[in-house]
């Protein structure tokens, strides 16, 4: 005796019979594996570094962070390196931000859309991909000579913090321009039209409406470029960042500090990693931890600032 098959039965059977789709599962598994592999690299790296660095932080956290470079592992610290890196990064901010944001405003808001403009824009993108050592050569050829020529070469023939700041500013400039351009382009056209519609000049529209709307994006982009500059090593090796040790006179003036020997945190990491002995390996790991903490703090600050700005409206 055949039971009559109703529509409801057929629908229920179709909808609830969960089918096994091997393709779907395999694909999802592959993607998950990709994620896990990259995570694994990161975790192993971090765990190794933290484990190696631990003795240093156990024995003398404060001394390490404020200490100067020294051939003796027990007395070496990253104070000078942090100071150098912060000075260089400040220089980058002062030089690259106004130039980069100004360039982006000009390209996005003023420049006519001609073949020349597009050529320039494309090449700015290409510049962002140039290896950093090339900028080091540029800095050596131009900025070091320029700084010596104007008498700020100090006792290191221009291979000082100033040259490093100029060079890293040139290095991150294309990135600042690109991120600022993208933030400006994301401002809805309606806001510009509204501004022009009530009789604002181009600058008034930019100043009062376009820039405030683009500010969170520009801010995030620029802080990230600062992080990039903070972690950059290769060009500094060409530009005289000290890999041995030196001391600054306690009473040296600001001009002296800017024009004489310097070092930077990533360069110090590089230097200590090359030294023989467990002591310096631990020091290198500890310096990496300090570097990572500073970068993470900077990035979090960028995110917090952006969120605060965006919450406003």
């Amino acid at each position: 005796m055949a039971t009559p098959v109703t529509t409801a039965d057929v629908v229920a059977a179709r909808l609830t019979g969960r089918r096994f789709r091997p393709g779907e599962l395999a694909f999802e598994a592959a993607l998950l594996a990709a994620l896990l592999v990259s995570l694994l690299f990161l975790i192993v790296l971090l765990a190794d570094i933290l484990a190696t660095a631990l003795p240093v932080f156990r024995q003398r956290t404060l001394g390490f962070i404020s200490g100067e470079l020294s051939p003796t592992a027990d007395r070496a610290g990253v104070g000078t390196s942090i100071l150098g890196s912060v000075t260089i990064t400040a220089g980058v901010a002062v030089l690259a931000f106004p130039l980069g944001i100004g360039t982006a405003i000009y390209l996005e808001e003023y420049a006519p859309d001609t073949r020349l403009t597009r050529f320039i824009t494309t090449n700015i993108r290409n510049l962002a991909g140039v290896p950093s050592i090339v900028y080091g050569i540029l800095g050596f050829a131009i900025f070091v000579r320029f700084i010596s020529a104007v008498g700020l070469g100090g006792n290191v023939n221009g291979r000082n913090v100033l040259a490093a700041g100029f060079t890293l500013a040139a290095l991150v400039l294309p990135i600042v321009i690109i991120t600022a351009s993208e933030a400006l382009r994301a401002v809805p056209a309606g806001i510009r039209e509204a501004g022009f519609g009530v009789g604002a000049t181009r600058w008034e529209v930019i100043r009062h409406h376009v820039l405030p709307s683009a500010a969170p994006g520009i801010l995030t982009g620029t802080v990230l470029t600062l992080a990039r500059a903070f972690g950059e090593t290769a060009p500094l090796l060409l530009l005289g960042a000290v890999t041995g040790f030196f001391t600054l006179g306690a009473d040296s003036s600001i001009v002296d500090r800017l024009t004489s020997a310097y070092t930077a945190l990533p360069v110090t990491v590089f230097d200590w990693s090359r030294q023989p002995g467990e002591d310096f390996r631990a020091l290198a790991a500890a310096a990496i931890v300090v570097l990572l903490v500073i970068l993470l703090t900077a990035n979090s600050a960028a995110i917090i600032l952006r969120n605060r700005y965006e919450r406003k409206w």
Partner: protein
Amino acid sequence: MTADADRALIGDTGPETGEPPTPPRFSLDMAARRQAAGTDAAVMFEVDDLNVHYGDFHAVFDVSLDIYERQITSFIGPSGCGKSTMLRCFNRMNDLIEGARVTGRLRYHGTDLYGPGVDPVEVRRRIGMVFQKPNPFPKSIHENIAFGPRITGFKGDVDGLIEDSLRRAALWDEVKDKLAESAYALSGGQQQRLCIARAIATNPDVVLMDEPCSALDPIATLRIEELMQELKETYTIIIVTHNMQQAARVSDRTAFFNVQLNERGQRMGRLVEYAPTGKLFTRPDQRATEDYITGRFG
């Protein structure tokens, strides 16, 4: 079955290639123009042989018409007929579009807006604009209205001006307790009335409206239409609309634009007929106008 019905059935939407009907040429004698238009109102804009090109695209072809003071003039026509482009000539918004070129004459109280030495910023301070999509600034309601007067050097009582502008835009009662709040918190219809308040806060002569109700629901639309009738007491209004009923309801004069193919087969906008609204909708002179308003195409 008549030929007309046939055309309607096969969906002939009308860019006609044949010899376009020649619109009546406008005399340069103002008295004659006024008489021909059947109005005593003063002329605010005189447009003669206006052409607009975007690069090598000819968007508007040889338009001549007069706009009268304290009237609502509506521009209607199918998509791509150049009516929005035409509207944007009146406050030189087309200047902001790369490759846009305007030729011919567009005189405002006798001064050619495209003449030498005319500052588009000054033009826009006298000829305000409301856009298709409500576009308040991402700031407070107060800031939205205060911006225009501030940049035009208004020195008086800003709060009073804001209240007055919002009252005239029929928005005051709804927002008076939240002037410091974001304009984005308002509904679409409120935002559009805020944009109208913003446009009139600089005390312009003319308000241009580019499909101001196309993003709004029928109730919000009705409010804007009522508002336009009140604003007409003070301002000259030109409105572009896709909605023929709206043109018929609100405007004193209507210009019908249509798409025509030029000798190279490109579409361009052309003024077909311009008349008092009542006449244009009941006794149009041109066949194309009648086809459009009766819904045969468009």
